[in-house]
């Protein structure tokens, strides 16, 4: 390394030189104040950078729940809930129309069909299955189930 080369100082700093080239750089550094200053400055700069990142990581580690709270809120709530208005009377007749309708939002795989009821309509929408059950007595059930 007969002349000053910043690129070589970086390679030396990063341990990317073979032993022969490393020795040449060290020989040059002994006689070149400018390159010694550059090497020292690079180290200071790297230390300052690492200190900055370390402070950020430390702050994140100490703040135990901030990330989880936001993540939990997002992943625990049902996705893609849509309000679907169905004219129950058109499907189930006058008797069912007189009764109130219960709308169930279900996660994939949850629940079983209402007991003693007959399926009167089944629809597929993107991400959901929609089924209407008409029981022998009581509420008509609109079953909105998220697809797994």
């Amino acid at each position, binding site marked *: 390394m007969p002349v000053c080369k910043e690129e070589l100082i970086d390679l030396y700093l990063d341990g990317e030189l073979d032993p022969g080239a490393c020795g040449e750089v060290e020989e040059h550094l002994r006689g070149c104040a400018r390159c010694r*200053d550059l090497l*020292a400055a*690079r180290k200071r700069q790297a230390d300052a950078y690492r200190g900055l990142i370390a402070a950020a990581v430390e702050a*994140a580690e100490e703040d135990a729940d901030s990330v989880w709270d*936001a993540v939990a809120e*997002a992943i625990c709530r049902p996705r893609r809930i849509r309000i679907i208005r169905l004219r129950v009377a058109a499907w189930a007749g006058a008797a069912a129309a007189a009764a109130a309708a219960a709308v169930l939002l279900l996660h994939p795989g949850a629940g079983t069909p209402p007991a003693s009821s007959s399926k009167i309509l089944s629809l597929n929408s993107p991400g959901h299955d929609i089924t209407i059950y008409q029981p022998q007595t009581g509420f008509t059930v609109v079953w909105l189930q998220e697809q797994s």
Partner: protein
Amino acid sequence: MTDRLKGTEEQDQESDAEVIAACLGGEVDRYRVLVSRYKGRVYGMVYGIVFDHGHAEDIVQEAFIRAFRSLGGFRKQSGFYTWIYRIARNLAIDSLRRRRPEFSLEENLEIFSSAAGGGLGPAGREAEREELHEQVRKAMTLLKPEHREILFLREWEGMSYREISENMHCSLGTVMSRLHYARRRLSELLERRPAGAKGKGRGGR
């Protein structure tokens, strides 16, 4: 994938897989284990690209949410940290492309000149350290995303050039030139020298 990115996940591989299996089985709360385990490292990387705490927190949250929603497609052989790292890194880089720079170079000349002092006593060292961090942070926001990322991989993750080339999908020559340019540019900004000026004087500070 680099050895460095495998990092702690090798020893945690089994337990990560167990947690993921539990989540897929409906135990959503178990995901908290993965969030706690990796949020610090992921946050450090994201902050090392965006250099804004509020912005970094939003990205880290979004990354963990996206990862959870794709858990079913997770390939175990790559390791969870590598996977969440990729998601968060891409979100951070994409967000930089959509945001305007926090400072202009002209504004930075003024910002850095106000902090040029020295010779502080012990009582002022903590303040000086914080000020130096702030100078570095502002300077980093003026670097291009690829220069921010390569500095993070080298100075924080401690990757070799070979590992960086694998991680950034570029040649060893590109790693050398990109890393050298990033460091020189950072020095120039911290020294209030115009971009492209060749190195006279000290490079750090």
